[in-house]
């Protein structure tokens, strides 16, 4: 284990960003996102979450797939792929770190999504343990240890030091490039902090959410539960929950005519949107109830069924604080987690 004093942390960032792009939580116009590090950037390691999750780095909101040139009746296709440069993603919380596993199940399954795969391959993840969770946190429900996140390198922060531990080969390699600014450390401070954090975690109001029904009850029983109607009644059908969610991965493929060619790009889509499944002659999900149900059934029932019980939620709590009407997955788990008429 290594450490570096927080007042020298810019040296670490400078070292990390020396050869490759370093993404870390930076505040711009009042909000925090993973932005490339530059000198004088307002780095906010204290923040619990970025608004968008870290998935944006591997599965960007908008990404060009290819360019097409039209000439009379002929079409020419040029791949819009570019060779991915290596990058470091620093400051990923445990929940977001787990979300990469969830996304891997989708994008790395056959056939592999090479755009995603390339970014995964080129990205080194430096995750950061939590010490100050908020009431919206419930990652523990999904077996995530916020004090011991997954990642190539894990870092812990206490009041004056950052502790650094490589966990994978990639992590070791990265450590080598920054070793000069780090000093050796024992793990006492980290252990003490982990213990303190665990105590706080015990006070989290959502820590006891019960997921058993979603894996044990019949899919159609949950699907046909009448309480979906009241849960979804006031859903605005916006995409906020989807877009801030670290595990939502629905996308759309669209064409844009630039006047001298057509760009085919993909962008995040939301199953909460009315036009998500709409076809010219009809829409299999006509009401917001059906769209709302789909989102949560997918996260809590369909996805685990196909992926050895792994839920497509990591308990980051973003949707809890961002939903305009405060309807969210915690409420769904609480309500639907109990069988109707029980």
């Amino acid at each position, binding site marked *: 284990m290594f450490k570096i004093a927080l007042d020298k942390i810019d040296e670490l960032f400078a070292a990390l960003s020396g050869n490759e792009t370093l993404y870390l939580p930076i505040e711009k116009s009042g909000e925090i996102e993973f932005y490339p590090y530059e000198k004088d950037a307002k780095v906010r390691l204290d923040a619990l979450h970025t608004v968008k999750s870290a998935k944006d780095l591997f599965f960007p*909101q*908008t990404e060009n797939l290819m360019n097409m040139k039209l000439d009379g009746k002929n079409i020419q296709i040029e791949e819009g792929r570019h060779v991915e440069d290596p990058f470091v993603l620093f400051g990923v919380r445990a929940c977001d770190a787990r979300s990469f596993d969830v996304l891997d199940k989708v994008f790395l399954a056959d056939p592999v999504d090479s755009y995603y795969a390339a970014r995964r391959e080129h990205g080194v993840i430096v995750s950061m343990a939590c010490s100050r969770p908020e009431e919206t946190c419930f990652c523990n429900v999904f077996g995530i240890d916020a004090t011991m996140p997954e990642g190539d390198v894990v870092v812990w922060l206490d009041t004056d030091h950052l502790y650094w531990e490589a966990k994978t080969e990639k992590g070791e390699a990265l450590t080598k490039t920054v070793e000069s600014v780090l000093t050796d450390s024992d793990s006492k401070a980290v252990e003490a902090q982990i213990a303190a954090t665990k105590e706080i975690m015990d006070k989290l109001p959502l820590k006891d959410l019960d997921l058993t029904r979603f894996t044990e009850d019949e899919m159609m029983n949950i699907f046909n539960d009448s309480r979906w109607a009241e849960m979804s009644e006031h859903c605005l059908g916006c995409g906020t929950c989807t877009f801030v969610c670290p595990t939502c991965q629905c996308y759309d493929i669209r064409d844009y005519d*630039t006047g001298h060619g057509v760009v085919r790009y993909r962008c995040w889509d939301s199953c909460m949107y009315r036009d998500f499944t709409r076809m010219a002659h009809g829409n299999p999900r006509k009401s917001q109830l059906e769209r709302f149900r789909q989102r949560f059934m997918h996260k809590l029932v369909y996805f685990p069924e196909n992926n050895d019980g792994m839920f497509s939620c990591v308990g980051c709590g973003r949707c809890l604080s961002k939903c305009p009407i405060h309807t969210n997955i915690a409420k769904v788990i609480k309500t639907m987690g109990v069988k109707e008429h029980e």
Partner: protein
Amino acid sequence: MQVNETNTVNTEEKEFTPLIVAFCCNWCSYAGADLAGSSRLSYPANVKIIRVPCSCRVNPLFILRAFQRGADGVILCGCHPGDCHYSTGNYYARRRMTLLFSMLDYLGIEKGRTRVEWVSAAEGAKFSATMNDFAATIHKLGPNRKLRDLRCEK
């Protein structure tokens, strides 16, 4: 996060000739432009006219679209207030454009890039003078950099 593959081409190296889109109402200003033509009153060739039935047909979307696609200036010409072929169309257009232009200014887009002029069918000279003046203004402002779509650049 966006990933765009478009390369930014440095257009400044070339001599800057602004691209100007002029929306002209069919009854007054388009006829005014025709009159400018038959009177051989020249104005820059980079002013391209789009004929619309009335100035009130011009949707803010069209104006933004022109900028998106690389126009450096957009001008809307219609009948003088009170002379609208449809009696009230240009009054609505006037309010819409006032608010739209004010909003663009508020967003930090250069004020001079948009303009409304009332040009009657008899004002060929005014049409040509207006276009010359507008083109000069845009030339001074330089290329539109703030309200364009990188994907559409050549």
